[in-house]
Protein backbone atom coordinates (compact mmCIF):
# COMPACT_ATOMS: atom_id res chain seq x y z
CA UNK A 1 0.00 0.00 0.00
CA UNK A 2 1.34 3.37 -0.80
CA UNK A 3 1.43 6.22 1.64
CA UNK A 4 -1.58 8.11 0.32
CA UNK A 5 -3.77 5.06 0.50
CA UNK A 6 -2.77 4.24 4.04
CA UNK A 7 -3.24 7.83 5.12
CA UNK A 8 -6.69 7.72 3.57
CA UNK A 9 -7.41 4.46 5.37
CA UNK A 10 -6.43 5.94 8.69
CA UNK A 11 -8.03 9.35 8.31
CA UNK A 12 -11.11 8.72 6.18
CA UNK A 13 -12.17 5.16 5.58
CA UNK A 14 -12.62 2.62 7.10
CA UNK A 15 -11.08 4.20 10.14
CA UNK A 16 -10.98 7.92 10.87
CA UNK A 17 -13.82 10.19 9.91
CA UNK A 18 -16.12 7.51 8.56
CA UNK A 19 -15.95 5.48 11.71
CA UNK A 20 -16.44 8.51 13.95
CA UNK A 21 -19.37 9.72 11.91
CA UNK A 22 -20.87 6.27 11.83
CA UNK A 23 -20.39 6.03 15.58
CA UNK A 24 -22.11 9.34 16.19
CA UNK A 25 -25.09 8.37 14.08
CA UNK A 26 -25.41 4.99 15.78
CA UNK A 27 -25.17 6.65 19.15
CA UNK A 28 -28.05 8.89 18.21
CA UNK A 29 -30.12 5.94 17.02
CA UNK A 30 -29.40 4.17 20.28
CA UNK A 31 -30.45 7.17 22.35
CA UNK A 32 -33.48 7.85 20.24
CA UNK A 33 -34.75 4.29 20.49
CA UNK A 34 -34.14 4.33 24.22
CA UNK A 35 -36.05 7.60 24.55
CA UNK A 36 -38.95 6.35 22.45
CA UNK A 37 -39.18 3.28 24.62
CA UNK A 38 -39.33 5.54 27.63
CA UNK A 39 -42.14 7.44 26.01
CA UNK A 40 -40.03 10.51 25.32
CA UNK A 41 -39.22 12.43 22.16
CA UNK A 42 -35.52 11.86 22.53
CA UNK A 43 -32.60 13.89 21.19
CA UNK A 44 -32.44 15.57 17.80
CA UNK A 45 -30.43 13.89 15.05
CA UNK A 46 -27.40 16.13 15.45
CA UNK A 47 -27.32 15.88 19.23
CA UNK A 48 -24.23 13.66 19.65
CA UNK A 49 -22.39 15.82 17.12
CA UNK A 50 -23.24 18.96 19.06
CA UNK A 51 -22.23 17.30 22.33
CA UNK A 52 -18.85 16.27 21.03
CA UNK A 53 -18.17 19.61 19.33
CA UNK A 54 -19.11 21.48 22.46
CA UNK A 55 -16.86 19.34 24.61
CA UNK A 56 -14.03 19.90 22.13
CA UNK A 57 -14.24 23.69 22.45
CA UNK A 58 -14.76 23.62 26.19
CA UNK A 59 -12.00 24.47 28.54
CA UNK A 60 -10.09 21.58 29.98
CA UNK A 61 -9.18 21.61 33.66
CA UNK A 62 -6.41 19.35 34.83
CA UNK A 63 -7.35 18.58 38.42
CA UNK A 64 -4.88 18.59 41.27
CA UNK A 65 -3.16 15.35 42.17
CA UNK A 66 -3.02 13.80 38.71
CA UNK A 67 -0.19 13.00 36.39
CA UNK A 68 -0.91 15.63 33.77
CA UNK A 69 0.81 13.84 30.89
CA UNK A 70 -1.14 10.68 31.54
CA UNK A 71 -4.31 12.68 32.03
CA UNK A 72 -3.92 14.16 28.54
CA UNK A 73 -2.60 11.06 26.79
CA UNK A 74 -5.12 8.50 27.98
CA UNK A 75 -8.07 9.89 26.02
CA UNK A 76 -5.93 9.75 22.88
CA UNK A 77 -5.12 6.10 23.49
CA UNK A 78 -8.77 5.45 24.20
CA UNK A 79 -9.68 6.68 20.74
CA UNK A 80 -6.62 5.24 18.97
CA UNK A 81 -7.44 1.69 20.04
CA UNK A 82 -10.77 1.38 18.23
CA UNK A 83 -9.51 3.43 15.27
CA UNK A 84 -6.65 0.99 14.74
CA UNK A 85 -8.90 -2.01 15.22
CA UNK A 86 -11.13 -0.70 12.44
CA UNK A 87 -8.38 -1.35 9.89
CA UNK A 88 -8.76 -5.09 10.45
CA UNK A 89 -12.50 -5.12 10.23
CA UNK A 90 -15.04 -5.23 7.46
CA UNK A 91 -16.38 -1.80 8.36
CA UNK A 92 -18.92 -0.57 5.86
CA UNK A 93 -19.12 -4.01 4.28
CA UNK A 94 -15.76 -3.59 2.53
CA UNK A 95 -13.06 -6.22 2.92
CA UNK A 96 -10.65 -5.32 5.72
CA UNK A 97 -7.69 -3.31 4.49
CA UNK A 98 -5.18 -5.09 6.61
CA UNK A 99 -5.32 -8.75 7.25
CA UNK A 100 -3.01 -11.41 8.55
CA UNK A 101 -3.36 -14.75 10.23
CA UNK A 102 -4.50 -14.22 13.79
CA UNK A 103 -5.71 -10.65 13.40
CA UNK A 104 -8.85 -11.57 15.35
CA UNK A 105 -6.80 -11.83 18.53
CA UNK A 106 -5.07 -8.53 17.88
CA UNK A 107 -8.38 -6.83 17.18
CA UNK A 108 -10.02 -8.08 20.34
CA UNK A 109 -7.11 -6.74 22.32
CA UNK A 110 -7.23 -3.41 20.50
CA UNK A 111 -10.89 -3.18 21.44
CA UNK A 112 -9.92 -3.52 25.09
CA UNK A 113 -7.62 -0.53 24.95
CA UNK A 114 -10.56 1.84 25.52
CA UNK A 115 -11.57 0.03 28.69
CA UNK A 116 -8.04 -0.11 30.01
CA UNK A 117 -7.51 3.57 29.24
CA UNK A 118 -10.75 4.35 31.09
CA UNK A 119 -9.57 2.34 34.06
CA UNK A 120 -6.21 4.06 34.12
CA UNK A 121 -7.81 7.45 33.69
CA UNK A 122 -9.95 6.81 36.75
CA UNK A 123 -7.04 5.50 38.77
CA UNK A 124 -4.96 8.52 37.78
CA UNK A 125 -7.18 11.06 39.53
CA UNK A 126 -7.61 11.71 43.20
CA UNK A 127 -11.40 11.67 43.11
CA UNK A 128 -12.85 8.80 45.05
CA UNK A 129 -15.64 8.37 42.56
CA UNK A 130 -13.10 7.97 39.78
CA UNK A 131 -11.16 5.41 41.77
CA UNK A 132 -14.26 3.39 42.48
CA UNK A 133 -15.26 3.69 38.84
CA UNK A 134 -11.83 2.55 37.71
CA UNK A 135 -11.94 -0.47 39.99
CA UNK A 136 -15.33 -1.37 38.69
CA UNK A 137 -14.36 -0.83 35.04
CA UNK A 138 -11.39 -3.15 35.35
CA UNK A 139 -13.29 -5.72 37.41
CA UNK A 140 -15.92 -5.76 34.73
CA UNK A 141 -13.27 -6.09 32.03
CA UNK A 142 -11.97 -9.23 33.66
CA UNK A 143 -15.42 -10.69 33.93
CA UNK A 144 -16.83 -10.22 30.44
CA UNK A 145 -13.61 -10.43 28.46
CA UNK A 146 -13.14 -14.19 28.63
CA UNK A 147 -16.72 -15.17 27.72
CA UNK A 148 -16.80 -12.49 25.00
CA UNK A 149 -13.59 -13.85 23.56
CA UNK A 150 -14.88 -17.41 23.74
CA UNK A 151 -18.05 -16.34 22.00
CA UNK A 152 -16.00 -14.87 19.15
CA UNK A 153 -13.77 -17.89 18.93
CA UNK A 154 -16.78 -20.12 18.26
CA UNK A 155 -17.20 -18.85 14.67
CA UNK A 156 -13.43 -18.73 14.29
CA UNK A 157 -13.18 -22.41 15.02
CA UNK A 158 -16.12 -23.18 12.78
CA UNK A 159 -14.39 -21.32 9.95
CA UNK A 160 -11.08 -22.87 10.81
CA UNK A 161 -9.34 -19.54 10.73
CA UNK A 162 -8.27 -16.76 13.08
CA UNK A 163 -8.47 -14.17 10.38
CA UNK A 164 -11.47 -11.83 10.45
CA UNK A 165 -11.73 -11.58 6.65
CA UNK A 166 -11.84 -15.35 6.26
CA UNK A 167 -14.36 -15.85 9.04
CA UNK A 168 -16.49 -13.19 7.40
CA UNK A 169 -16.37 -15.08 4.11
CA UNK A 170 -17.16 -18.37 5.82
CA UNK A 171 -20.04 -16.80 7.74
CA UNK A 172 -21.44 -15.51 4.44
CA UNK A 173 -22.28 -19.10 3.53
CA UNK A 174 -23.22 -20.42 6.96
CA UNK A 175 -25.65 -18.63 9.24
CA UNK A 176 -23.78 -19.28 12.47
CA UNK A 177 -26.56 -17.69 14.50
CA UNK A 178 -28.52 -20.91 14.12
CA UNK A 179 -25.62 -23.14 14.83
CA UNK A 180 -24.22 -21.30 17.82
CA UNK A 181 -27.13 -19.32 19.26
CA UNK A 182 -25.64 -19.28 22.74
CA UNK A 183 -22.41 -17.81 21.44
CA UNK A 184 -24.42 -15.08 19.72
CA UNK A 185 -26.30 -14.16 22.87
CA UNK A 186 -23.12 -14.11 24.92
CA UNK A 187 -21.40 -11.96 22.33
CA UNK A 188 -24.24 -9.40 22.40
CA UNK A 189 -24.31 -9.30 26.18
CA UNK A 190 -20.54 -9.10 26.22
CA UNK A 191 -20.72 -6.09 23.94
CA UNK A 192 -23.18 -4.44 26.32
CA UNK A 193 -20.65 -5.10 29.08
CA UNK A 194 -17.82 -3.68 27.02
CA UNK A 195 -19.73 -0.51 26.27
CA UNK A 196 -20.98 -0.28 29.86
CA UNK A 197 -24.58 -0.19 28.74
CA UNK A 198 -27.39 -1.08 31.16
CA UNK A 199 -27.53 -3.43 32.99
CA UNK A 200 -23.74 -3.40 33.06
CA UNK A 201 -23.38 0.31 33.78
CA UNK A 202 -22.17 -0.16 37.35
CA UNK A 203 -18.76 1.39 36.44
CA UNK A 204 -20.46 4.67 35.70
CA UNK A 205 -23.54 4.31 37.87
CA UNK A 206 -24.66 7.90 38.13
CA UNK A 207 -26.55 7.58 41.38
CA UNK A 208 -23.62 5.95 43.15
CA UNK A 209 -20.35 7.22 41.76
CA UNK A 210 -21.43 10.19 39.62
CA UNK A 211 -19.68 9.42 36.33
CA UNK A 212 -17.22 6.80 37.49
CA UNK A 213 -13.78 7.06 35.95
CA UNK A 214 -14.92 10.00 33.82
CA UNK A 215 -15.88 12.20 36.78
CA UNK A 216 -12.83 14.44 36.51
CA UNK A 217 -12.77 14.68 32.74
CA UNK A 218 -14.45 17.57 31.02
CA UNK A 219 -13.84 19.15 27.65
CA UNK A 220 -11.59 17.45 25.12
CA UNK A 221 -10.68 14.41 27.21
CA UNK A 222 -14.31 13.54 27.75
CA UNK A 223 -15.04 14.09 24.06
CA UNK A 224 -12.30 11.67 23.01
CA UNK A 225 -13.51 8.99 25.41
CA UNK A 226 -16.99 9.60 24.13
CA UNK A 227 -15.89 9.18 20.50
CA UNK A 228 -13.91 6.09 21.40
CA UNK A 229 -17.04 4.62 22.91
CA UNK A 230 -19.13 5.36 19.81
CA UNK A 231 -16.45 3.88 17.53
CA UNK A 232 -16.34 0.81 19.68
CA UNK A 233 -20.10 0.46 19.42
CA UNK A 234 -19.82 0.35 15.63
CA UNK A 235 -16.92 -2.08 15.66
CA UNK A 236 -18.58 -4.41 18.14
CA UNK A 237 -21.74 -4.49 16.04
CA UNK A 238 -19.72 -5.08 12.89
CA UNK A 239 -17.82 -7.94 14.46
CA UNK A 240 -20.94 -9.69 15.72
CA UNK A 241 -22.85 -9.09 12.48
CA UNK A 242 -20.04 -10.47 10.39
CA UNK A 243 -19.54 -13.51 12.60
CA UNK A 244 -23.06 -14.49 13.46
CA UNK A 245 -25.47 -12.84 11.04
CA UNK A 246 -24.09 -14.24 7.82
CA UNK A 247 -21.22 -11.87 7.20
CA UNK A 248 -21.14 -8.31 5.96
CA UNK A 249 -20.18 -8.58 2.34
CA UNK A 250 -21.75 -5.38 1.01
CA UNK A 251 -22.47 -1.91 2.38
CA UNK A 252 -26.18 -2.70 2.38
CA UNK A 253 -25.71 -5.92 4.33
CA UNK A 254 -23.48 -4.02 6.73
CA UNK A 255 -26.07 -1.31 7.29
CA UNK A 256 -29.03 -3.65 7.71
CA UNK A 257 -27.31 -6.13 9.96
CA UNK A 258 -25.61 -3.68 12.27
CA UNK A 259 -28.79 -1.62 12.57
CA UNK A 260 -30.78 -4.72 13.42
CA UNK A 261 -28.31 -5.55 16.16
CA UNK A 262 -28.38 -1.96 17.41
CA UNK A 263 -32.16 -2.11 17.69
CA UNK A 264 -31.89 -5.23 19.78
CA UNK A 265 -29.21 -3.72 21.96
CA UNK A 266 -31.19 -0.54 22.58
CA UNK A 267 -34.33 -2.47 23.41
CA UNK A 268 -32.43 -4.66 25.80
CA UNK A 269 -31.08 -1.60 27.67
CA UNK A 270 -34.48 -0.09 28.31
CA UNK A 271 -35.73 -3.12 30.20
CA UNK A 272 -32.87 -3.57 32.58
CA UNK A 273 -32.13 -2.63 36.14
CA UNK A 274 -28.48 -1.98 36.84
CA UNK A 275 -26.59 -4.95 38.22
CA UNK A 276 -24.24 -4.44 41.10
CA UNK A 277 -20.64 -5.15 40.23
CA UNK A 278 -20.61 -8.36 42.26
CA UNK A 279 -23.73 -9.49 40.46
CA UNK A 280 -22.10 -8.72 37.11
CA UNK A 281 -19.03 -10.74 37.95
CA UNK A 282 -21.14 -13.57 39.29
CA UNK A 283 -23.29 -13.56 36.17
CA UNK A 284 -20.34 -13.80 33.82
CA UNK A 285 -18.25 -16.33 35.64
CA UNK A 286 -21.05 -18.46 36.94
CA UNK A 287 -23.21 -18.54 33.83
CA UNK A 288 -21.65 -16.70 30.88
CA UNK A 289 -18.39 -18.60 30.68
CA UNK A 290 -19.97 -21.89 31.54
CA UNK A 291 -22.67 -21.88 28.93
CA UNK A 292 -20.25 -20.86 26.20
CA UNK A 293 -18.08 -23.79 27.16
CA UNK A 294 -21.11 -26.05 27.21
CA UNK A 295 -21.94 -24.91 23.70
CA UNK A 296 -18.43 -25.68 22.58
CA UNK A 297 -18.70 -29.10 24.06
CA UNK A 298 -22.04 -29.72 22.38
CA UNK A 299 -20.70 -28.61 19.01
CA UNK A 300 -17.65 -30.76 19.47
CA UNK A 301 -19.65 -33.87 20.31
CA UNK A 302 -22.06 -33.20 17.46
CA UNK A 303 -19.20 -32.80 15.07
CA UNK A 304 -17.44 -35.91 16.23
CA UNK A 305 -20.60 -37.96 15.89
CA UNK A 306 -20.95 -36.71 12.31
CA UNK A 307 -17.46 -37.89 11.71
CA UNK A 308 -16.21 -34.42 10.90
CA UNK A 309 -14.38 -32.38 13.40
CA UNK A 310 -14.36 -28.67 13.78
CA UNK A 311 -11.23 -28.97 15.76
CA UNK A 312 -9.50 -31.02 13.15
Amino acid at each position, binding site marked *: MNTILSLGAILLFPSGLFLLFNGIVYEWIDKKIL*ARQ*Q*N*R*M*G*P*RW*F*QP*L*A*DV*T*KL*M*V*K*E*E*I*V*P*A*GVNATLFNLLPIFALAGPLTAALYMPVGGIRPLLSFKGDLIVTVYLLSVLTIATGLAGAN*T*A*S*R*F*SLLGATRTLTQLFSYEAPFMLALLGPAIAAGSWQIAEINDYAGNHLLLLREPIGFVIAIIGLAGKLELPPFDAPEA*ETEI*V*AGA*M*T*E*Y*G*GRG*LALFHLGRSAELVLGLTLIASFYLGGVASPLAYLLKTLALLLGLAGFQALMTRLRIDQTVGLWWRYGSLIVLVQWLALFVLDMSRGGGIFS
Partner: protein
Amino acid sequence: MSVQLDKPWQRILDEVATWARKNSPWAIHYNSGSCNGCDIEILAALTPRYDVERLGVTLHGSPRHADVLICTGPVTRQSADRLRRIYEQMPEPKFVVAVGSCALTGGVFHDGYNCLGGIEKVIPVDVFVPGCPPRPEAIIDGVVKLLQKVDPDRTPARAGSEIVSEKEDTHGSYDRNPATD
Protein backbone atom coordinates in the same frame (compact mmCIF):
# COMPACT_ATOMS: atom_id res chain seq x y z
CA MET B 1 -11.86 31.37 24.75
CA SER B 2 -13.12 33.43 21.86
CA VAL B 3 -10.22 35.47 20.68
CA GLN B 4 -10.97 38.32 18.29
CA LEU B 5 -10.19 36.88 14.90
CA ASP B 6 -10.94 38.18 11.47
CA LYS B 7 -9.91 35.38 9.16
CA PRO B 8 -13.05 33.85 7.67
CA TRP B 9 -12.25 30.25 8.65
CA GLN B 10 -11.76 31.33 12.20
CA ARG B 11 -15.10 33.03 12.20
CA ILE B 12 -16.63 29.81 10.92
CA LEU B 13 -14.98 27.91 13.75
CA ASP B 14 -16.43 30.41 16.18
CA GLU B 15 -19.87 29.96 14.73
CA VAL B 16 -19.57 26.20 14.97
CA ALA B 17 -18.55 26.49 18.61
CA THR B 18 -21.50 28.72 19.37
CA TRP B 19 -23.85 26.39 17.57
CA ALA B 20 -22.55 23.44 19.55
CA ARG B 21 -22.84 25.30 22.85
CA LYS B 22 -26.38 26.34 22.11
CA ASN B 23 -27.40 22.84 21.24
CA SER B 24 -25.76 20.92 23.97
CA PRO B 25 -26.28 22.57 27.34
CA TRP B 26 -25.43 19.94 29.93
CA ALA B 27 -26.80 20.84 33.30
CA ILE B 28 -25.96 20.16 36.90
CA HIS B 29 -28.42 20.73 39.69
CA TYR B 30 -27.69 21.99 43.17
CA ASN B 31 -30.18 22.53 45.95
CA SER B 32 -28.76 24.97 48.46
CA GLY B 33 -31.65 24.79 50.91
CA SER B 34 -34.80 24.60 48.87
CA CYS B 35 -38.03 22.97 49.97
CA ASN B 36 -37.88 20.42 47.11
CA GLY B 37 -40.75 21.98 45.23
CA CYS B 38 -38.45 23.41 42.56
CA ASP B 39 -36.27 20.34 42.54
CA ILE B 40 -39.06 17.99 41.70
CA GLU B 41 -40.21 20.35 38.96
CA ILE B 42 -36.69 20.32 37.49
CA LEU B 43 -36.77 16.54 37.56
CA ALA B 44 -40.24 16.59 36.04
CA ALA B 45 -38.78 18.54 33.13
CA LEU B 46 -36.71 15.47 32.27
CA THR B 47 -39.66 13.15 32.15
CA PRO B 48 -41.83 12.22 29.18
CA ARG B 49 -44.29 15.09 29.24
CA TYR B 50 -41.61 17.78 29.03
CA ASP B 51 -38.51 15.83 27.99
CA VAL B 52 -35.79 18.47 27.80
CA GLU B 53 -33.49 15.99 26.12
CA ARG B 54 -35.15 16.96 22.88
CA LEU B 55 -33.47 20.36 23.36
CA GLY B 56 -30.18 18.72 24.16
CA VAL B 57 -30.40 19.37 27.89
CA THR B 58 -29.27 16.46 30.00
CA LEU B 59 -28.64 16.35 33.73
CA HIS B 60 -25.12 15.37 34.72
CA GLY B 61 -23.67 14.58 38.10
CA SER B 62 -20.17 15.95 37.81
CA PRO B 63 -19.54 19.72 37.72
CA ARG B 64 -16.70 19.04 35.28
CA HIS B 65 -19.16 17.89 32.63
CA ALA B 66 -21.66 20.69 33.09
CA ASP B 67 -22.26 23.93 31.25
CA VAL B 68 -25.25 25.15 33.19
CA LEU B 69 -25.64 25.20 36.95
CA ILE B 70 -29.31 25.06 37.92
CA CYS B 71 -29.74 26.28 41.49
CA THR B 72 -32.76 26.15 43.74
CA GLY B 73 -33.50 27.44 47.19
CA PRO B 74 -32.21 30.21 49.40
CA VAL B 75 -28.54 29.86 50.20
CA THR B 76 -28.15 28.62 53.75
CA ARG B 77 -25.00 29.36 55.69
CA GLN B 78 -23.92 25.77 55.57
CA SER B 79 -24.33 25.30 51.83
CA ALA B 80 -22.91 28.61 50.57
CA ASP B 81 -19.38 27.35 50.48
CA ARG B 82 -20.39 24.21 48.64
CA LEU B 83 -22.32 26.19 46.06
CA ARG B 84 -19.30 28.37 45.38
CA ARG B 85 -17.08 25.34 45.00
CA ILE B 86 -19.37 23.63 42.53
CA TYR B 87 -19.40 26.79 40.47
CA GLU B 88 -15.64 27.00 40.54
CA GLN B 89 -15.24 23.39 39.54
CA MET B 90 -17.17 23.91 36.34
CA PRO B 91 -15.08 24.58 33.23
CA GLU B 92 -15.65 27.70 31.14
CA PRO B 93 -17.92 28.69 29.53
CA LYS B 94 -20.44 28.25 32.32
CA PHE B 95 -23.84 29.66 33.12
CA VAL B 96 -26.09 29.81 36.13
CA VAL B 97 -29.88 29.56 36.21
CA ALA B 98 -31.61 30.37 39.49
CA VAL B 99 -34.95 28.60 39.75
CA GLY B 100 -37.72 29.62 42.12
CA SER B 101 -38.55 32.57 44.33
CA CYS B 102 -36.15 31.49 47.04
CA ALA B 103 -33.25 31.26 44.63
CA LEU B 104 -34.06 34.76 43.41
CA THR B 105 -34.36 36.61 46.68
CA GLY B 106 -34.57 34.17 49.53
CA GLY B 107 -38.36 34.04 49.20
CA VAL B 108 -40.30 33.45 52.39
CA PHE B 109 -37.06 32.62 54.13
CA HIS B 110 -35.32 35.87 53.26
CA ASP B 111 -35.00 37.05 56.85
CA GLY B 112 -34.20 33.72 58.39
CA TYR B 113 -31.14 33.65 60.60
CA ASN B 114 -29.60 30.84 58.60
CA CYS B 115 -30.29 32.14 55.08
CA LEU B 116 -28.00 34.44 53.18
CA GLY B 117 -30.60 35.24 50.53
CA GLY B 118 -30.71 34.42 46.82
CA ILE B 119 -28.17 32.60 44.72
CA GLU B 120 -26.72 35.84 43.36
CA LYS B 121 -25.36 36.61 46.81
CA VAL B 122 -22.83 33.88 46.25
CA ILE B 123 -22.29 33.36 42.53
CA PRO B 124 -23.20 35.37 39.42
CA VAL B 125 -26.53 34.40 37.91
CA ASP B 126 -27.43 34.57 34.21
CA VAL B 127 -31.13 33.77 34.22
CA PHE B 128 -33.75 34.05 36.94
CA VAL B 129 -36.87 31.89 36.81
CA PRO B 130 -39.48 33.10 39.31
CA GLY B 131 -42.30 31.01 40.72
CA CYS B 132 -43.08 28.99 43.79
CA PRO B 133 -42.31 26.64 42.29
CA PRO B 134 -42.01 27.54 38.60
CA ARG B 135 -43.70 25.09 36.30
CA PRO B 136 -41.47 22.86 34.20
CA GLU B 137 -42.47 24.94 31.18
CA ALA B 138 -41.10 28.02 32.90
CA ILE B 139 -37.85 26.27 33.72
CA ILE B 140 -37.47 25.15 30.11
CA ASP B 141 -38.22 28.71 29.02
CA GLY B 142 -35.47 29.90 31.35
CA VAL B 143 -32.98 27.56 29.75
CA VAL B 144 -34.04 28.62 26.27
CA LYS B 145 -33.61 32.28 27.23
CA LEU B 146 -30.17 31.40 28.46
CA LEU B 147 -29.30 29.73 25.17
CA GLN B 148 -30.28 32.86 23.30
CA LYS B 149 -27.67 34.68 25.29
CA VAL B 150 -24.87 32.31 24.38
CA ASP B 151 -22.81 34.45 22.11
CA PRO B 152 -19.16 34.22 21.10
CA ASP B 153 -18.65 37.95 21.51
CA ARG B 154 -19.24 37.83 25.20
CA THR B 155 -16.66 36.50 27.48
CA PRO B 156 -18.14 33.35 28.88
CA ALA B 157 -18.18 34.04 32.59
CA ARG B 158 -19.73 37.42 32.03
CA ALA B 159 -22.33 36.35 29.54
CA GLY B 160 -25.19 38.65 30.29
CA SER B 161 -24.84 38.60 34.01
CA GLU B 162 -25.49 41.93 35.60
CA ILE B 163 -24.46 40.71 38.99
CA VAL B 164 -20.94 41.50 39.92
CA SER B 165 -20.63 39.90 43.31
CA GLU B 166 -17.35 38.13 43.80
CA LYS B 167 -16.70 37.95 40.11
CA GLU B 168 -13.10 38.87 40.66
CA ASP B 169 -12.71 35.87 42.86
CA THR B 170 -14.37 33.33 40.71
CA HIS B 171 -13.45 34.29 37.21
CA GLY B 172 -10.37 32.55 36.02
CA SER B 173 -9.65 30.70 39.21
CA TYR B 174 -10.63 27.09 39.33
CA ASP B 175 -11.03 24.64 42.01
CA ARG B 176 -8.79 21.82 41.00
CA ASN B 177 -9.85 19.59 43.81
CA PRO B 178 -11.64 16.42 42.87
CA ALA B 179 -15.13 17.20 41.75
CA THR B 180 -18.09 16.63 44.08
CA ASP B 181 -15.69 15.84 46.84
